């Protein structure tokens, strides 16, 4: 698998002010050996909500200073879902932002940013990634070509010698 784009993750990280505050809180918190396990389910879909095929690599990044450098990886199952279990330090009382990404070529598809860790619920955090390539664009030259044909057609019609009289 290609190296996952830390640039994209950092971009999202920078967009989240929450991440900074939580990171600061964690930095000040006393260290502890015990951790809490949290389940994260990432659903990968294509346009129209169709589940992605099995085997798509998904990367989950938890935005803690200590963990951001080491994203966890998993692949999708037959239902297009990748399951993760994240271990959080017990001191974390507030939500830690996390985000999942799928990379296709040079495009990174991120999920929404979700909070992890605030509650003791055993329910998995659900994330969804929609993998759809950006639509193509008409090349600029085609606009100019069409406009030129238009000018030619209108010009030839307007400036030719008129010999058909329009009835009243």
């Amino acid at each position, binding site marked *: 698998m290609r190296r996952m784009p830390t640039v994209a993750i*950092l971009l999202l990280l920078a967009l989240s002010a929450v991440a900074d505050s939580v990171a600061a809180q964690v930095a000040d918190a006393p260290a502890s050996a015990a951790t809490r396990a949290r389940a994260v389910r990432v659903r990968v879909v294509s346009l129209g909500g169709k589940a992605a095929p099995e085997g798509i690599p998904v990367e989950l990044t938890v935005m803690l200073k200590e963990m951001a450098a080491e994203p966890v990886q998993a692949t999708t199952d037959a239902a297009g879902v990748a399951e993760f279990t994240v271990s959080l330090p017990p001191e974390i009382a507030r939500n830690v932002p996390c985000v999942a990404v799928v990379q296709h070529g040079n495009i990174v598809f991120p999920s929404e940013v979700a909070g992890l860790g605030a509650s003791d619920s055993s329910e998995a955090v659900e994330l*969804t*990634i*929609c993998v759809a390539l950006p639509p193509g664009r008409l090349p600029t030259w085609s606009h100019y070509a069409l406009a030129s044909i238009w000018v030619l057609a209108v010009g030839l019609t307007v400036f030719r010698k008129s010999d*058909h009289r329009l*009835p009243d």
Partner: protein
Amino acid sequence: MLIPLGQLALYLALLLGVMAVVLLTVGTFRRDSLAARIGREALIGSTAMVLATAAVLVVALVRCDFRLQYVFQYGSLSQPLVYRISALWAGESGSLLTWTALTLLALTSFVVSRPLTRKVAAVGALAALLPLLLLVILTVESRPFATIPLQTPTLQAADPAPSTETYVYQVPPNGRELKLQLQTWAMIVHPPLLFAGYAVLVVPFAIALANLLGDRLADRLDVLRRYLLVGWTLLTAGIALGAYWAYVELGWGGYWAWDPVENASLVPWLLATAALHTLTVSRRSGRLLRTTLILTIASLLTCVLATYITRGGIEESLHAFAKGELTQCYLYFALAAIAAATVSLVGAWPGKADGDRPAPSRRVWLMVVVAAVLTAFAAAVFLGTVGPQVLSGLGGPRYQISIEDWNILGAVFGLLMLGVMIAGPWLTGGLRAKGNRVAPLVAHASYVLLVVAVAGSHIVRDDLTAWFAKGQSADLAGHQFTYEGVTVSDDAQRSIETIRAAVTVSRNGRTVAHLSPAHKFNYRTGDQRAEVDLTVGPLQDLYVSLDPRMGPDGEALLSVHRTGLVVWLWGATGLMTLAGLAAAWRRSATPGGEQP
């Protein structure tokens, strides 16, 4: 592949639209048959391309292609197919596209159904200006195919070896969905009917403007009448459906609140009604021609202004004067057309049509009075809607016309029109007109019915809003409304929770009806909607709506209404619509008809 095709179709529609206007104008001025013919083909091509554009957007909505911002805003995976399609006219760019397509269809139907003459070319060129303006707005500003952009990472410095070719592309997995209030059958039909009405009025507008500019006032009055009637009929049905939607969806027991959106559709309807009345005189005797033409032009211009008011809100629009240059095009178009009409009117006054004629008959005077009353009503509604915002935008005092004042205004003009309608034939010696009079008679009878229904709904009106404990009853107008409790259901697939109350209505100890008003919450989007329940009777409706707030012990806040004769209102507007259709269907044999 689909989205670039849509963009291409829109671009081609614009190019062909400009071509149509240019060549039809050249054809008119130079009497050049070939230019006019190519212009007509370009118009047909532009229509086809706009239809293709709309089709691409519908396919994107049906397929939930959330890469498009429009689809994300109004589409949803859990939305039923019919609402995915009706989302086409839910937002600004989709509405403009619908209006453009319908306008071009109406115009094409006019141009291809008759031999191409200088007059047809002139009308085509003038009428194509409006869809052309809409196409410019769609292409440059509104952009129905605007996509979610690819983001280039901006924090490359944070990465020691960033890949410069990496992009972030976040497509939402689901859309925001249509508002729940718009997910009703009335809202599937109401907007396209209104837009179709606005669209069809383009043809009489262009005929009227061409007649004024060419100083041939009586040309093609039969065609003008037919298109005006079709437009008027569509507006009638559209306004009535909008009122019905407000009645059954908004939960306040009324159907007309003199809201700017409602007023904006009423003004063109009033002006078109006035034009239809003066047209009867114009076609028979050639009198009131300029009045008819000006009223016809004004009915379309107020449609344009109505869209300007309703799409984006007038206050926002007033604020947008400084920055939204293309949005101003609406106003430029209206002002240019008003200026053209005024110049031609002044130039043609006194026109050849009037000449030395005998004094006008009483019938002509009656139509002058009818037109004056309807135009004054339209002007009052227009000024009352736009005036306060314009004054406030110019730094003046902020005031608002209360619904009671609006009701008084409506009652005065409504009764005035009824008086003229009843006294008119008597004063002018009865209905001696030739031809088939069934459709006009039905239309006027349905207006009487409408006035009776509106009066009944205001006179016979009782309202009660109160907290009900389970099993508690309240009396309203001789009926007992007993609250039996609520049930909560959850549609997980659509993320909709429904709270439904059970209310039993009885009279003198006998159960009359079981009503179940509900309130729906979309917990994914945060949207909510009241779902009223009512019993419809020939004399009164009993109507209950449920407030979303619930008491700690299951108490419900219910609004109970009794409104008289509402069903007559729907009957009256239905009859009026049928009468309009019948009149438009019938080919008139009166003079001033279609010329080749």
